[in-house]
């Protein structure tokens, strides 16, 4: 079980209506960590998953410096202290 820290876009605080505080959870996989994030903050679910529950094409998730699509996607295992950076495929504006 890894200790996961999320880094999310600055504009997600606006979406959430204010400060988010620390986004930390324990999870074994990227999918498990994202499930925690979207359950803790349901307004982020549509920004992460498609309606079919897949990782949406409009978002990229990095474990450290690695894009999870180049690893095992949502099944990518996590260990130790993991940092997940959530980067919209279109960021800014």
């Amino acid at each position: 079980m890894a200790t996961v820290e999320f880094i999310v876009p600055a504009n997600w605080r606006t979406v959430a209506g204010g400060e988010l505080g620390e986004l930390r959870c324990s999870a074994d996989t990227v999918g498990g960590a994202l499930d925690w994030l979207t359950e803790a903050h349901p307004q982020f679910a549509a920004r992460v998953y498609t309606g079919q529950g897949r990782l949406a094409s409009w978002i990229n998730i990095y474990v450290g410096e690695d894009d999870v699509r180049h690893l095992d996607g949502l099944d990518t295992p996590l260990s130790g202290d993991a940092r997940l950076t959530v980067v919209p495929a279109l960021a800014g504006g």
Partner: protein
Amino acid sequence: MVTIPAAEVQIGSSEEHMDGLTSVQHYGREWFEDESPQHRRAVATFAIDTYPVTNGEYLAFTEATGHRTAAELRGWGLVYGASYWEEREGACWRRPAGPGDSVQDRLDHPVVHVGHADALAYAAWAGKRLPTEAEWEYAAHGPQWRCWPWGAEWGPGFANCAEHWSGTAISDFAAWRSWWARRRAEHGETPATTPVGAFSPTGDSPFGVADLAGNVAEWTATTYHLYDRDRSYDPVYTMAAGRYMVVRGGSWKDFRFQVRTSERIAVDPVYSSFALGFRCAADLPLGSSPCAFS
């Protein structure tokens, strides 16, 4: 194409502009911080298309080359639905809203649903290239920095963006969602692009380049990097640096603050949507030898 003379120009946004921007819309300054610091950049003489590449021009390209866009090959394109983006089956540049839509009656509108590679392929076929980020911004605000291509004041009829269609100022996401819900109810999800040049000459840049604010956001040739390595930026932008490409100009679905001349958008090169297109640029002199031997 329009010839843009060589110059050393201000690129990016000033501290004063950034502070003002933060006070008039809902996103925090860190969302725009990558426009800072404003700095001077030398730009060589170049030419840039007066308008974004149109559906008609892209049709001619695909008929000549057989090119199929990434969206066509994978079978879906990104369309904004009732509440957020959706991977719409069948949506592509030929059918921006998906099945039932067609660009046949919009051949003079800018092409959308093109990824960076699709834009590069067109540019190569046309004997041109994409503009660099600095070229694009210089073409938009001219020798003197200005907020929008036409000047410092926003006004109706200057650009195709969400506020043009809503008729009122939009300063937060709630107001934008309200506009989109009305728009979608009346017009479906067909992108609200307009014929290229529809806002000329009112909305043109000092060089007479059209549609640099709104209509479609535009790919550039520049890999996204932060302007100052020693400055603190949102970690999301740091992660995008070196991975994403720069998009400029904002689109028909953006606020007036998102179609400013120095607004930067970092975009995954494989991304495309019903609001993203491009225009081309070229080195000068066109098609001649760089050396004069006689």
